[in-house]
């Protein structure tokens, strides 16, 4: 497991152990990765984050068209692997969780322990830090630093 925010690690680790999920990605609503488990290539995780955030944005827009409240989660059921995608509020703003699971667990278990992950993250989040201004000259260094944190390189 790799995380940009150390306080995310314990709740995420508990979720992975209890849910039996194979891959989990936590990201902000705009697709910025916060933590990941199960991905081995940075290209994959960035693509998954962008696609996951895109799906959440699309379903949010669909809900708007249907004049209903935004959907909490989306599930894609597959024969071998399934995908659970859910948005949730944290003290750091709205995040999105993307979970890939196989036949060794179930949607019910993933949903159940994802709910607990959301509660645990809410409790574990430290007090709000002052927002840092990202300067153009820092951007590449910060991006590389994030990638090193997420992939240990």
């Amino acid at each position, binding site marked *: 497991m790799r995380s940009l925010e150390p306080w995310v690690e314990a709740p995420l680790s508990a979720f992975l152990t209890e849910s039996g999920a194979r891959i989990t990605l936590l990201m902000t609503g705009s697709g910025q990765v916060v933590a990941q488990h199960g991905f081995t290539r940075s290209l994959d995780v960035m693509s998954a984050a962008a696609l996951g955030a895109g799906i959440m944005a699309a379903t949010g827009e669909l809900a708007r068209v249907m004049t209903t409240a935004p959907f909490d989660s989306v599930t894609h059921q597959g024969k071998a692997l399934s995908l659970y995608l859910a948005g949730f509020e944290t003290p750091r703003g709205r995040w999105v969780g993307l979970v890939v699971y196989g036949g060794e667990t*179930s*949607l*019910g*278990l993933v*949903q*159940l322990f994802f709910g607990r992950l959301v509660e645990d993250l809410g409790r574990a989040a430290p007090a709000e830090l002052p927002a840092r201004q990202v300067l153009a000259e820092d951007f590449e260094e910060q991006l590389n630093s994030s990638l090193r944190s997420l992939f240990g390189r």
Partner: protein
Amino acid sequence: MNLAALLAELTPVHGVRGALIVSREDGLVVADALMEDVDGKAVAALTASLADRMAGVTRALGQPEPVVWQLEGSEGVLLAAPVAAGLLVVAVASPEVNVGELRLRVLRAAERAA
């Protein structure tokens, strides 16, 4: 199959705190009749997982699948019976429940649901 009618046969038993029909593969609630403090989603997910693992044990032992699972703890009782079509009939009760009566009703409900 009227699922609400099936559950209505279980809930009148003294001590029963809820009854559910659970999708075995997904661990999701299909139908429920629960007291407010019973977390139906958690019961469904964990019971389906338990049933799957217990069925794996009996398979490994070369035995047919059990017709009912019965868990008794200090604070309650859980009964689950598999039904055709990948469902489980589940009952959650407090310790003072007449387990024999509830077991019979769960088995009967499972037979009717088949």
